[in-house]
């Protein structure tokens, strides 16, 4: 019955090999994740530079800044960063320290861009609708995912609408000031220009609110 003998060395060798492959898989996966976080970090740095460059642009072309300023590419970069942060948050969890750190940076960049947009609206007579959106990824906000989805829909359908999404649980003084200023009490909360909604706002009501601010829906023909 030699074939029925238990070859313990083989069992151990397979254990070693499996563990090795497993650890290699985990290490490789973690390496890719860290590369992705670095990529977001780079995106943040690029954004920082671009925003600063735009602010400087204002000062340089002070004679007639409105002809030279174009906010759209930076806004697109912001959305790209937000989408990637969201993806990493889903993958690594909302409590991951690296993700949290990047989210804090992102919030500051958003505030900076928001201020710049307000300035552009005021000084250049632009009619962009600026929306601040406060959400929570914790279990206390069951409607936040849907609210975020509706806002994405609004942003894609109304090109002059800019949405700035903030994690309500992130602590920084600038964000706290905004919360105080607009009397944000919980999540979901939406600020459209100066009007605050401390509740879920459905698509119909949101569309009405942005239309009142002069936003126009893009038609399919226009996209094509």
């Amino acid at each position, binding site marked *: *019955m030699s*074939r*029925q*003998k*238990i070859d313990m060395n*083989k*069992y151990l*060798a*397979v*254990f070693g*090999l*499996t563990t090795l*492959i*497993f650890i290699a*898989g*985990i290490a*490789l*996966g*973690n390496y*890719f*994740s860290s590369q*992705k976080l670095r*990529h977001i970090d780079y995106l943040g740095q690029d954004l920082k530079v671009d925003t600063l460059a735009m602010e400087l642009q204002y000062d340089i072309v002070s004679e007639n800044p409105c002809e030279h300023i174009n906010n759209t590419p930076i806004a697109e970069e912001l959305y790209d960063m937000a989408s*990637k942060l969201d*993806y990493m948050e889903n*993958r690594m*969890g909302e409590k991951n320290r690296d993700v949290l750190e990047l989210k804090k940076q992102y919030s500051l960049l958003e505030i900076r861009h928001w201020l710049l947009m307000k300035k552009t609206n005021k000084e250049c007579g632009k009619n962009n609708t600026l929306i601040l959106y406060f959400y929570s990824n914790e279990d206390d906000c069951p409607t936040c*995912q*849907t609210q975020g*989805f*509706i806002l*994405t*829909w609004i942003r*894609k*359908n109304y090109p002059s609408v800019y949405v700035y999404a903030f994690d309500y649980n992130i602590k920084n003084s600038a964000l706290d000031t905004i919360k105080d200023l607009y009397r944000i009490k919980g999540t979901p909360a939406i600020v459209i220009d100066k009007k605050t909604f401390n509740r879920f706002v*459905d*698509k119909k009501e949101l569309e009405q609110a942005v239309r009142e601010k002069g936003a126009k829906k*893009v038609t*399919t023909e226009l*996209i094509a």
Partner: protein
Amino acid sequence: MEIGEIILYSVSYFGLYCAIFFMLTLIENRKKIKNPKRPKKLPPVTVMVPACNEEACIAKTIDSLLELNYPKKLLQIIVIDDGSKDNTLKIAKSYEKKGVTVLTKPNGGKGTALNLGLEHAKGKLVACLDADSVVEPNALLKMIGYFGRKKVMAVTPSLKCTRPKNIWQRVQVIEFLLGVYLRKVFSYLGSIHVTPGPFTVFRKEFFDKYGGYDTSTCTEDIEISLRIQSHQYEIENAVDANVYAVAMPTFRTLKKQRVRWYKGFLENVAKYKHLFSPKYGNLGLFVMPSAFLSILTATTIVTYSTYLMIKTNYQRAINLYNVNFDVWKLLKIRWDWFYINQSPLMLIGMISLVIGILMIYLAKRLSKEKMPLTYSYILFSMLYLPLYVFWWLMAIKARIYDKDVEWAGRKRNDVEYKYM
């Protein structure tokens, strides 16, 4: 790390361990793949064909036996009609002039039919061939050499499916090929625990010594293999001895068949639970426990994935409902490498997929299969795991409630045999 992730990592580790263990076993024994030389003096062999309402295919089954490359005077073919209500008996009788023995009895189940066949068997070796299966002409000669060693009580063939016609049959083609691979590996580990109904060859002396087929079980092929293992005998496998069975053509018949198999497995494992011991070598230490663990792991994966899928899609449905399903502008997706899932679990999953493909490739090569398999493999990858879990849950339910399981019938006029 969440509990779900910990479970998924554990399950992946177990799956990977088994896959590597089996692959390494095959590599370790690669020089033993060739079948042993057959003896100069061939032993007499009896092939029993139990049949119940098999009029559509029994002729082809008997024809394939008559075409076996084996001395006719050493080959006894017995057809046992198990109370058929169709023309099975009439067709079988028409082969009497070609030397086929035909027995008939009231319906009592496959085990009783085989036991009647055993009473009339004159061969030193006996085989059973289900009446919906066909055997390749050289299969018996390829298997016979293994009986050179006294400890070998049974030799299994490679059981494969005939050319598939629909998705259910395509899934089974790959499943059967994986069975071909595993059975060869298990033979090297001394751990074959299922001798397939179609054309496993046994030493008749085993039945003489330890009794005939167990008629109380719905899977007598599992019972007999566990009984052989229980008496510390060996079961071998001739990987290039091909036998073809028609795959179940519908979801319903497939479910019935699998529930019967799995319930029978549970029954027989309970009966031979003493086999779960290192005393029985790799079978008791690793193969049987891992067979059980695989049910648990597959159930865990499928349940967890289903939960995640429902949760995600439920949220998606709510989101879409809230924008009146107007998704036109949301569909503009930009390609970005960033969103490719490169998580550790995904990478380990990819490794498992590669090993899976390698296993199918090896099974195909070893059994000299020529059928194209890409489409079948894709279907298998998508459908098998949930089906497997579903069948197991049904079988466990049938076992708990001690429910009788039906034999799966199929539309016999749909049957097509082909040597491939």
